[in-house]
């Protein structure tokens, strides 16, 4: 195979934009350096091409060839109005109400619901922390893997996002909701991009549910989100990502989970929107007896390409992981599941189970499945499986023989396929939102209202 040649389109423009952006921001030297190194690293790497093995399913050329601008510092009234309208339409407005919530529009904080949290629970804009106490987030920010081109790019534009910190032994009572809205309502000449950085720090024995929701209208936009979550000993994190951006949106999201001894995380990715979407998760189980559960549901209709990449790194003994990803592909939709489980030397008694199931609803839809196990150790229990199929003909006939139209029967079976993943979400109002969004996504779902 030819040596991958990075995509250079758009790289210089982005580098210039990042330099101008950073020049307008104050901050300690390490932060300036982090941004500058990010620019340099991205300028060097460029966008990964299709013949880069890690990116073989994600065509970034359309993204690279579109010039995106940054939203001006001030949020316009039009943006505020449209963000509320979008939320109302997608059913996210009342979610977890009146729980804690941060709303970002095109990368700027516009709303936060009034809520009272104890002082040991921090839930605020990262930009505020960078201004008031940057030293408290330095270690974590600097630790992000800048070898990843989109993390480097995120570093280059580092400024806003959600910062969550839960003190030792504390439990965040309600889900902490972080909403990102993409909209061109401000009337800027170029479509907009936002590079959000979220930090989630759970100290020893702390517990929290963090819900990240991405919404947007059906117009060009580019979201590059990086979330770093650090779990202290015996901490418990549930992270839910809901991707509801518009049908022309580019979205790259990276979630990194690190686990101390006995820490447990559960990640739920629900990806319905966007034109080109890549959801990446890297979970590192470096604490003994830690564990992670990764659940994902991705749906791609015509014009959509949704790729899910996960790496679960078993680096300590007695750690366990469960992974279930399901894809639903319709029209000429494209999807990919690329899931790697690594078991390091010394990670004895590892228990890892990985499953990928995909449902194809049309002749033109396509899904790639690439489950990988990389085991450097004996005394482990690992399994993986992948299936891709169509709607079960027997089940379809069974439902029709009871009076359901073919369309209704197909929608019901597709819904049932996806609902297995939705049902894993414990927070009932988030689950209800997901059920609703899955239903809305279904092709011709009229007459089916589970």
């Amino acid at each position: 195979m030819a040596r991958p040649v990075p995509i250079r389109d758009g790289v210089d423009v982005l580098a210039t934009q990042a330099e101008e952006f950073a020049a307008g921001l104050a901050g300690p030297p390490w932060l300036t350096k982090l941004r500058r190194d990010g620019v340099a690293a991205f300028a060097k790497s460029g966008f990964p091409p299709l013949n880069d093995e890690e990116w073989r399913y994600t065509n970034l050329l359309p993204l690279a060839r579109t010039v995106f601008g940054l939203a001006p510092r001030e949020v316009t009234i039009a943006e505020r109005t449209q963000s509320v309208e979008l939320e109302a339409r997608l059913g996210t407005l009342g979610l977890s109400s009146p729980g804690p919530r941060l709303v970002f529009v095109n990368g700027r904080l516009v709303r936060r619901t009034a809520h009272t949290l104890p002082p040991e629970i921090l839930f605020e804009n990262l930009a505020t922390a960078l201004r008031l106490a940057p030293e408290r987030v330095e270690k974590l920010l600097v630790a992000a893997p800048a070898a990843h081109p989109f993390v480097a790019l995120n570093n280059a534009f580092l400024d806003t996002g959600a910062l969550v910190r839960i003190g030792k032994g504390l439990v965040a009572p309600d889900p902490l909701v972080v909403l990102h809205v993409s909209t061109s309502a401000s009337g800027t000449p170029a479509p907009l991009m936002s590079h959000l950085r979220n930090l989630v720090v759970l100290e020893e024995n702390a517990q929290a549910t963090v819900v990240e929701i991405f919404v947007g209208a059906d117009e060009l936009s580019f979201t590059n989100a990086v979330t770093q979550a650090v779990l202290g000993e015996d901490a418990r994190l549930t992270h839910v990502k809901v991707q509801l951006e518009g049908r022309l949106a580019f979205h790259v999201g990276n979630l990194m989970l690190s686990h101390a001894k006995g820490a447990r995380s559960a990640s739920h990715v629900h990806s319905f929107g966007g034109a080109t979407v890549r959801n990446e998760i890297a979970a590192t189980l470096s604490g003994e007896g830690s564990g992670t559960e990764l659940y994902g549901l991705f749906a791609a209709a015509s014009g959509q390409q949704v790729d899910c990449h996960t790496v679960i790194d078993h680096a300590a003994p007695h750690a366990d992981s469960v992974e279930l990803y399901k894809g639903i592909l319709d029209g000429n939709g494209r999807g990919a599941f690329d899931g790697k489980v690594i078991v390091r030397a010394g990670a004895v008694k590892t228990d890892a189970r990985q499953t990928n199931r995909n449902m194809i609803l049309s002749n033109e839809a396509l899904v790639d499945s690439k489950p990988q196990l990389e085991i450097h150790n004996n005394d482990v229990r690992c399994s993986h499986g992948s299936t891709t199929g169509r709607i079960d003909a027997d089940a379809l006939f069974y439902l029709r023989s009871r009076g359901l139209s073919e369309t209704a029967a197909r929608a019901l079976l597709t819904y049932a396929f996806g609902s297995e993943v939705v049902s894993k979400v414990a927070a009932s109002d988030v689950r209800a939102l997901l059920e609703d969004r899955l239903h809305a996504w279904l092709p011709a779902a009229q007459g089916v209202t589970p």
Partner: protein
Amino acid sequence: MNLLEITNLHASIEEDGTEILKGIDLVIKPGEVHAVMGPNGSGKSTLAHVLSGRPGYMVTQGTVSFLGKDLLAMKPEERAREGVFLAFQYPVEIPGVSNNYFLRTAVNAVRRHRGLPELDAMDFLQLLDEQAKLVEMEEALLNRSVNEGFSGGEKKRNEVLQMALLDPRLAILDETDSGLDIDALRIAAGGVNALRDGKRGFLVITHYQRLLNYIVPDFVHVLSDGRIVKSGGKGLALELEAKGYGWIETEAATAAR
């Protein structure tokens, strides 16, 4: 008017063209219970499938009229809404779809077609409660996914429950007795008998006479190599039980010469 009128029905497997039904003639009047018996491979289940519109078969000759309408021109869901019900030999498990929700959707699809108002969740639960008693169906099974993890008996009871809820004009029972112990058979048959109201017709397909001790037919037909080779009253079933199918096949072969 006849409930069902099958005339010279020929049907083949779509995939390879193998002819399974080679000229079936059968008339069922309202209120009648007809049993179709026959050895394995005689075409019993194919007859049930073709009547219910299962994909994979090709009707090459003949007609089927249901209450005067051309049954073969209808989609499976239209047949169901018009009042044809098939109790499956192997009911399908559907993970992720609650039995309760499925039953209500089906009932309302049929009610809409018949010009009846749809039932809301409360009204439906009341109806479901009544009908579930008929087949001794526990509430827990109604909240589980359709047939998922059900025992053989529970699946067949679920079929009879669906039959009761959908209130068909013609019920086709495809080997309802297969895989059932005596208790399960008694409950399933009890449910069917409760639905005999003098108007509803039944087509009971079975390999063994045993089921017919519980669901007593008015007529018994013997199917062999895709044709009805003998018809009679309920006594014919007992004769078959005693002598096996061999004598009929020999008789049919002799007659064909």
